């Protein structure tokens, strides 16, 4: 068989399928547990502060990645921030067109050195702009599970 002679269909060669049957079970971690409990129970964002590097971590971290100190100063963070950047998603993971383009943004939270990637809603996608002020909309307390999806979306302030 030359390099120019290729198998043109999988059925032309012996082939079979197999999977790697594992599921991931993740923990939120020591800092993450506190962050998600506060969202679930109080509809509130928490962050940790590194007083040495003057960094406010949101989502919070147990240690400062820059100076490696243990972080135990916790502060409440406003649910308000601004759109650092955004995209409009047109296709789902299988490549099928979505009924409506889905606005997705990196939201820089006020008073924090980081932010969250999340959906935007209650807005015409045409109107979204970088720098736009937005706020978190939490799900109804009964529906919250201690997940990032306890935040339904962000909307314009």
């Amino acid at each position: 068989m030359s390099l120019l002679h290729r198998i043109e269909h999988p059925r032309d060669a012996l082939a079979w399928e197999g999977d790697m049957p594992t599921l991931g079970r993740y923990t939120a971690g020591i800092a993450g547990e506190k962050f998600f409990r506060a969202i679930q129970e109080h509809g509130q964002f928490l962050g940790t502060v590194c007083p040495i590097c003057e960094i406010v971590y949101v989502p919070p971290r147990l240690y400062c990645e820059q100076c490696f100190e243990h972080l135990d100063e916790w502060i409440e963070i406003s649910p308000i921030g601004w759109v650092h950047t955004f995209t409009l998603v047109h296709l789902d993971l299988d490549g099928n067109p979505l009924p409506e383009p889905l606005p997705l943004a990196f939201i820089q939270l006020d008073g924090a050195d980081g932010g969250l990637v999340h959906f935007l809603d209650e807005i015409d996608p045409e109107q979204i702009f970088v720098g736009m002020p937005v706020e978190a909309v939490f799900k109804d307390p009964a529906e919250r599970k201690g997940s990032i999806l306890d935040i339904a979306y962000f909307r314009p302030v």
Partner: protein
Amino acid sequence: MSGNRVAVVGAGMTKFVRRAQETAKELAWEATHLALESCDMTLDDIDAVIIGTAPDAFDAVHMKSEYLSDGCGGWGKPVIRGYVGGGTGVFAPIQGWYHVASGLFDTVLVVCEEKMSSCQPHPQGAFLTIFDHTTERPLEPNLLWIFALEMNAYMNRYGLDKRDIATVAVKNKRNAADHPAALLGDANITLEDILNTEVLAWPVQRGDVSPVTDGAVALVMSAEHVARRVTNKPVWVEGVGWTLDTAYWTNRDLSYPVYVEEAARMAYKMAGITEPRQQIHIAEPYDPFDYKELHHLEGLMLFDKGEAPRAAADGVTQRDGDLPVCPSGGLLGVGNPIAAAGLMKVAEIFWQLRGEAGARQVPGSPKRGLAQAWGDLMQVGTVIVMGV
């Protein structure tokens, strides 16, 4: 010895547990933070970071070392991941050694982490695809099959009984009772306890096997001029070695680990060791299964082929024996968070040679020890020899 002299100057580890609430990063940070603290260093003193961690599937995170890097002190630094499966925990400090011995870096962190509880329903699932997809997977093998076949080959070659092998599990679980980080330490466990555990794949019983574990271990390694400044008890890396046997396990003699012998020969040559039985005072061979400790002791040429079980029965490998083996409690006792377990062995040699092993301290001020691990497709041997 080739290259510049390199010493281990600090070590730290988390407790080894069945299921950690901490994220993998948080586990890594805890071990790394402790290692830095142990030698009064901060991240400012670290020039590069070596991360050792076994299959991505265990933590269920692809690009696992990149994910772990901030917990390993890698922010803004040169970072590399070493990965030779189960051999990783001893390969990572070998990489640490050549990063420093080359003269490229003065001080490096070596961090190994595994959070196997993330992998459900069992980390075995991730191993199913290591078998050849054409000749073996249709039989639906799991990892225990290899070990059962290998253990049986070893037993038959030398006419060994299950009792000859289970003594290793008893010794290591008893030794682990003195390890503050151990998962399965048990000072009172007996041979009968091991022999009465359920059969998984004959001759392997549950008591012969190390447990699925979460944990992290970290070392600080420095060039001589730094080591002499930060500690009066540097533990020098005297030799390193690693080799791969064929990937076809059906083309190997399963009763003898050639890959360990070749790695040991490389390390001994570098360390100037000509009589390992006289010149090695303490050994931490890889013991994910009890027969593997015996198998590996023979591969390390510390006992003749087929003779390690006799030595174990005679008490030679006990903590107060002529050649203490796995005084830490090994993987069978301390636990087996794959990469972290191998590095735990290196940390144990570090603590033993410094006289800092507490209740686990072997008598007689040992001057030289080795740690060894095994992995990849069951065909890698990794060996490090350290001395004071």
